[in-house]
Structures are given as C-alpha cells and as structure tokens.
C-alpha cells in the first residue's frame, strides 16, 4: 500500500495523460524545503514547492500531509503546534538531525540518477540523428 504522489504539469493536463512520479519524490522535496526554509506548516511547504517549480508544477496539495506523517513517523521531521501569520492554530514542521543526514544521502542519489538519466536519454537522441 505505497502511496505514490502525482505531479501534474500544465501540459499533461491538456494532454489528459497523468505522469506517475517516482516513489519518495515528494518526501525528498518536503525535506529539502524544510532544510532550507526552517519550520513551516503544510500549506507553506506545498506552496513553496509550487513556487520553486515556477508554478509549472501543480501539486495536489492534500497529498503533502501523507508525506509529512510518513516523514514524521520515521523521525526525519518533527512537528509542533504553533500560530500562523494570520493568527490561526497550525502545525509547524521542522527537519531533524536524522532528517538532514537522510536528505544529504538522498540528494546525492537523485543528482547522480538524474545525471545518468540525462546522459542515457541524450545518447538515444544522437543515435536517431545519425
């Protein structure tokens, strides 16, 4: 019963074809956001991810909470009730020491993977041309 977050770009909505994102992507995004921004509530994290992607990525914001509870159960982030900017009660998440360690490992992994993927896909393009 693994939950798979779905990132949908504007283009794919028009094409009406959905793209399944690799497992754990949203978790990593949330970790990175918390590492850079400091304590944030769920809405803040979701908005931040959307903004960073240049609003080209539409996030189904509700799914962020499944991601957050999973990270919390693993001890990578912690949560605390606080007050939001508009004076509402909200839960604020912050990254833990274990979470930072994990983030560092995963970031290296993703960078390596995306580098390899880029090269592999690039190679295929050259083959077609020649």
């Amino acid at each position, binding site marked *: 019963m693994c*939950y798979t977050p779905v990132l949908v770009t504007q283009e794919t909505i028009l094409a009406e074809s959905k793209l399944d994102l690799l497992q754990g992507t949203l978790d990593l995004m949330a970790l990175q956001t918390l590492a850079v921004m400091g304590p944030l509530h769920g809405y803040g994290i*979701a908005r931040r991810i959307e903004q960073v992607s240049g609003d080209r990525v539409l996030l*189904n*914001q509700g799914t962020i*909470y*499944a991601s957050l509870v999973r990270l919390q*159960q693993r*001890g990578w982030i912690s949560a605390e009730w606080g007050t939001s900017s508009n004076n509402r009660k909200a839960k604020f998440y912050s990254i833990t020491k274990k979470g930072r360690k994990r983030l560092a490992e995963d970031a290296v992994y993703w960078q390596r993977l995306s580098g390899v993927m880029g090269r592999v896909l690039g190679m295929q393009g050259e083959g077609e041309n020649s």
Partner: protein
Amino acid sequence: MIHWLRHSFERLRSVFQRAELDQELDTELAAHLELAIEENLQRGMSSEEARRRALISLGGTEQAKEHHREARGLPAVDTFFQDVRYAARGTVKTPGFTVAAVLTLGLGIAANATMFSMVSGFLLRRPPGRDPERVVVVTSVSPAQGFQPDANAVSAPNYLAWRAAGNIFENMAATDNYRAVSLTSQGQTTSVPSEAVTPEYFTVLGVSPHLGRIFAEGDDQPGRDHVVILSHELWDREFGSDSSLIGRSVRLNREDYTVIGVMPANFQMLGFTPQLWTPLVVTAADQTAAARRNRSLYVFARLKPGVTLAQARAEMKTLGRRAEEDFPDTEKGWGVAARTLPDFLVYLFGIRSALVVMMTVVGFVLLIACANVAGLLLARAGTRGKELAIRMSLGASRLRIVRQLLTEGLIIALLGGGAGLLLAYWGVKFVRANMAFNEAASAVPLSLDWNVLLFALGVSMLSAILCSLAPALTASRTDINSNLKDQSRAASAGRSQSRLRTVLVTAEIAMALFLLIGTGLLIRGVFLIQHQALGFQAEHQITAGVTLDSARYKDPVQQTLFVKDLLPRLRQLPGVGAVAAVSELPATGAGHVTLLIQGQPELPADQRPRTVDVIVTDDYFRTAGIPLLRGRAFTGLDNAAAPRVAVVNQEFVRRYLKDQDPLGKQVRLDLSGSTPAWSEIVGVVGNVKFYSETTRYDPELYEPFLQRPVSSFSLMVRTSSDPNGLASDLRKTVAQADLELPLAHVMSMSTIIERQKGGDLLFMQMLAALALLALTLAAIGIYGLISYSVGQRTHEIAIRMALGATGGDVRRMVLSQGVKMVSIGAAIGLVVALPLPRVFAAVFSDIDTSDPRTYVIVLVAIFLVALLATYVPARRASALDPIRALHSE
C-alpha cells in the same frame, strides 16, 4: 532494524489513535484552507473564487484524509476492524441465522474440546521429574502373543546384568509395583498399595521430595531397609499433613519403618498409584537361575547426555540377545524393548487407540457441523447477492469481498468456539464423573486446561475457514449485471450456490453414514463383550484381597494354617453359601506360565505350551459356580503330603490334549523358585474368561492351595443375599483371625467386573452420543436445504399447481430431490465404510466388529431420518395455495 521496528510501532499505534489523529488532521486541513483562501484574496480574487481555488488546489479533503490514513497506519488492520464491525452488525441483525450457526458449530467444537481434554489429560501430560523424555523404561518382550507382549516386566537377574553392563545410561533403577502392605495407624490396619524401588529410583526420575529426603545408597542394605517415603495423599489422609512425621516410625506389615520423606502432590504417573515407597532389596535369591522366571520389575534408566533412544534400543537388544544365548532355558524367545517414560506410561495405560478413534469421530462431527454452517452461509450469500453486487459496482475488489465474508465466518466460528467451550465445561464434568471407575483413571485430572483452550481456538479458526471459504469464493464470483437487473423481490440463489449446497449436504450424509457404521460396529462389539458369559457366576459374590506379610507368614505352613483357620469361620457367617481362596479372581487377568506335558517332546522355552495358572482352595469351583465336567474337584485330602494334582479347563484339553484322555496325564509347570514337580490331572472344568474384556478362551490350570500355598490371594464368598451387606462381617471375621491383617478391595465380584469395564461403558455412551449428534446435524442439513429450496421454488411450484399438478405430485417432486441426494451420499459413505471392520480389527484385537447387519440397520436409519427431514418441507410445499403465492410475487 531498530528504525524499522520504530516505524512499525508508530504505524500500529496510529491504528488505535484513529479518532485523535483524524481530528488533528482536520484542524491542519482547516488551517491550510484558511491560508490558501487568504493568499488568493490578496491576489484580488472574490471570496467565492478564492475558496473554490483553494479547494481545487487541496484536491479534496476526504481524499487527503484517506491518503493520510494509508500513509500513517496499517490499512490491512483498519480493513479488518471495519470488516469485524460490519460482520458484528450482520450477526446481530439476523439473530435466527446467527443462533443456528453458532449452536451448530458450538456442538461440534464442544465435542472436540471435551474429547481433547482427555487427550490432554492422558496423552499430553508430562510425567513428573527432570526431562522425562530422557528417562527410558526397559521392558521384556514376551514370545507369546497377548495383551501388550512387549511391555512385560523384567527379572531381577536381567536387571542386575543390564545395570552392570550399561554404558549408555547415567543410572538405572528397578521397581516392583502392586505390592500391597498393611499400614497400622491409630489402631486401624488398612491395606495400602505400595511400590518397592531401588534407591536410585527417584534420582533417575529427577524428582525432589516435598519433605525430608529421597532414598540414598545403602537404604537397600538388609538391616537399614526399614525406611519409607509417603505419597502426599497418604501423608495428608492418614497423618494430617504433620511435618514432624519425618524421622518418626510407622507400622508397616507389623514392623516399624522410619519415615524419611514425603513426595510432592504432583508426583503422579499415569497408571501407577502407589501410596508409599519402600526400598527394593535385591537378595542372593534374586540372582539364581530360577529367579529368571520371576519377571516382576520395571526398569527405569536415564540416558547419558548425547545418547539417543535408538542407541539405547540397539544396546538393549544386544544385551537381550546375549541373555538369550547364555540362558536359553529361560530366555529363549524373550526380547528387550525400550521406550521413553512418557511413551511407556501412555502405552501401558492402553487408552491411545480409543482416544484416536474418539478424536476421529469428533473430527467428522465437526466436519458435518461445518458443512451445515457453510450451507447456511451459502443460503445467506444468495439472499445477499444484490448487496454484494452493489458493493462491487461501487469499487470493492473481489478480494475485499472474500475477506469480508471470511471475517463474518470467523466471528461466527469464534462465537461457536465460546459456546462450545461452555458446553465442553459440562462435557468434561460428565467425562470426569464417569472416568472414576478405577484408581488410575480417577487420578488423572481432566479439565479445560491451556492445551484444550488452544485446541478449541485452533478448531474454531479451522471451522471459520471451512465454513466460509466456499461461500466466500462463490459470492465473490457474483455476476454484477444479472444481480442488479434481477427485479424479483425474492432472493435468488445462483445456480452454482445451490449446486454447492447439494454437494455439501450429500457429503454430510456420506460422512454421517460412515460415522454411524463405524460407531455402530464398535458399540456392538463392546456391547457383546459387556454381555458375554464369563464362565462363572459373578453375582452374589463378595471378594477381598489378602496379602500375608512375611513378618508372621513367611513359612508356607503358616500360610496354610491361616487359610485353614479363616475359611471355616467365614462359612459360619449367616447367609454364606460357600467360601474359597483363590490366587487370582476369575476374569481379572491371572498370569500365564509355560509347562511340560508328559509324553510330549520337551520344546525350547519359547515354544512350550502356555496356560493360565490359578491356585484355589478345595471349594473354589462350587463357590465360583464353575461346572465340573469330568473327573473330580479338589478335596481337603489334596494336601502337601498327598501326590500333586491339577485340574484343567476344556480349552486346555482342546488345545494340548486333543483326542486324548486328560485324566491321569502328568504336567509340570515352569515355576520360579521351586523345584519342578509333576502333577496329575484329576478333573476337567468349564472355561472361564481369562479377563472380562477378552473374547477368546485361554487354557487354564488349577492347583490346590494346600499343595502350593501363596501369600497373596483373594477371598471369594458366595452369599444368598446382597453381597455388599456382608462386608463388615467379612472384615470382623478376618480381624478375629488376625487383628493386624487388613483386607484390600472389599467389593462384590460384579463391582470388580464393572470397574474393569468402566471405560468401555463410557466409550460406548460417548460413541452413541456422538453418532446421534452427527445424525441430527445431517438431518438438519437436509431439512435446511430442502426447505430453503422449496422456498426458492415457491413461484415455480405455484405455477405447476395452477397448471393442474396435485399436492401429491409436488410432494413426490420434492421428496425425489431429497432421495436422490441421500442415495448418492449413502452410496459414497457405504463404500468408504466397507473396510472398517478390518481397520478396527487391527486396532482393537479383542472386539468383534464384523457385522453386516450394522450396515443394513444404519442404511435404513439414515434413509428414514432423511425422508422425515425431507417430508416436512415437501408437505409444506404441497399445501401451497397457488393463487396467494402468485399474488404475493
């Protein structure tokens, strides 16, 4: 690993904090929306638009919650609880169905749990002591066929030789059971079952005393052997649990013995009921060649670490063969067997095969009960076709439906298990009350112990699967379209469901028939034994056991004098017809000896003729009512000074003296401890059953008491009135002859026979009860199916009747449906039951189970019951009012 554990724990915890976590998430999502709306408002949207956009971005609060639950918890567990809640609602909503299913399963499970309490009490109970599996019991294997030939006791010379030779045992001990001693306390003398054991005995078993000490080396040396260890029960009953008893002396067999210890209350071994232990003294006489014939010891030994039972068996086999070569005269044909202590106790008690049969029977009863409940569930699944179709069309997977139906089965099975345990509580009480027919059986505590509870739980789980798997799989194949389109209000069962139900009921009938034939054959066999002629008159006899102690009656002359003094006194008592003393009461399992017959070749020890050997006083045959057929009975003149004489039975003549005149023939018994002497056969008497539960006759040979006195014998007194009324007179008279001589087992001969057969009666009653239960369940199964199918076919039957079918036609139609099913089921059951007599013959050697009539009777009974179960719904169908039935559609 730790990480994984922590995560799993968090997920499990969240299952139980569902409400709290959901509420927190609600708060969080509300804050989220507020923040989003506020941001949208700042961008200049209308408040309505801002709210709409915020909701779209969030993507639905319900979905977000569902994602959250899945991520944080264990969805499988959640689903299970959901199913349980749903199933619980279902069982409450249909009470009739629930009660029927729970009661049916409850009966099946109760039968199983009750029977298993016996398995737990008799077979699974560990003997006391350290690692009882490492204790081995060594027995002799008799060359003669008979009851448990491989569990014979061992002779002292063999025990001594094995103990000296063994390098596979840590230590070895021997015990002499069944020695009654007289215990005098507070002026009262009673006979107490005791056991003489070598000093190592308790060490071999690895048990510690409750008080004092166990035997030590040297306690068996003459002069130091007057020490005794008491059982907890005796210490409690006779001495009021007085701890200061240790070191004091008690009077046993007219001599003072120092109490050195008391064993704990839980020191009990199946089948052995000694109340005290004295040291077994091995004397020089025990090492002579003649002592080899006296096999009276059980040998216990503890295996050395690392030595296996197989190695011990091989070693003992070698030692047995060596004895056979060295002493062919006495050892020829005899072997050695070794069993672990738990195995030996169960084997000797001889209850295993009866329990195996009973467990098989209750297993079948449970299967029939499960088939019934499965039928009920199938019928219900039929009426719920629409409900399931709707759920599936709304997206429930087939697996989900199967799981939910299995959960419903589980709830019913667990309720059934609870009801079953409740019923088993009374079942065990009944069995316990009826298992008290002798000391050994009543010493076994029967209860709903942990073994039984675990077993009942396992059986319930198994029933859940058996009952609900078939209905669940059928239901999950529900065709959504046809079910939803079906406009009729009446529930319609799918074709496959009714076919499956027919198969189930047919199987039930087959099983019930098989079970009824099996139990019928056994009950008849046991009944025949119960009511067989024993060859003597058991009514109007009172008996008592006498053991003449060596302190006063060491000399055979004294033994003779005692009997000569006592018997005339007893004859004087009012209401006494005849009196005799006999070494072993008839039909109670006397010992066998080998013998030589003059004029016949002297065969090796293992091929010599064998006979039951009984020593009687001169009036015995008249007292016991055994007919004298030829020659004469013993008289007072057949004494030590006269020529030795013997009387044999018909079977002896038939087997060993065919076509010869038995009178005047000389025979010589191979006896231990006495010089062989020839005796002349002077009479032939009628056959007496060697044991009340054997069907065959054994050769029997009687010798006069005056020519071969024994120290242990029974008194047999024939009365004209109620024999039990004479008990106190009997005791008083013996006390007049010797104040310190106790009588053991003062009871009527009929009581003795009853106690020997007590287990059989219970066995019969339980078999009959279970067979009846199986038949009832099968009848309910047939009835349920037929009346359900009649209900289903109301419309069809009404049309048939509207078109001119008579009530008789309808009745015949419904009946033929039932008859077809019963015929097929009965045929299958009959074929499976055909080899039963052969199977039983292998298990119960003494029960005659070949009886074709049983097959016919059971077949007729099954048909009658099935027809009755079919007839009731058939009649209802034929009484249908077609107009009303069609209107109501």
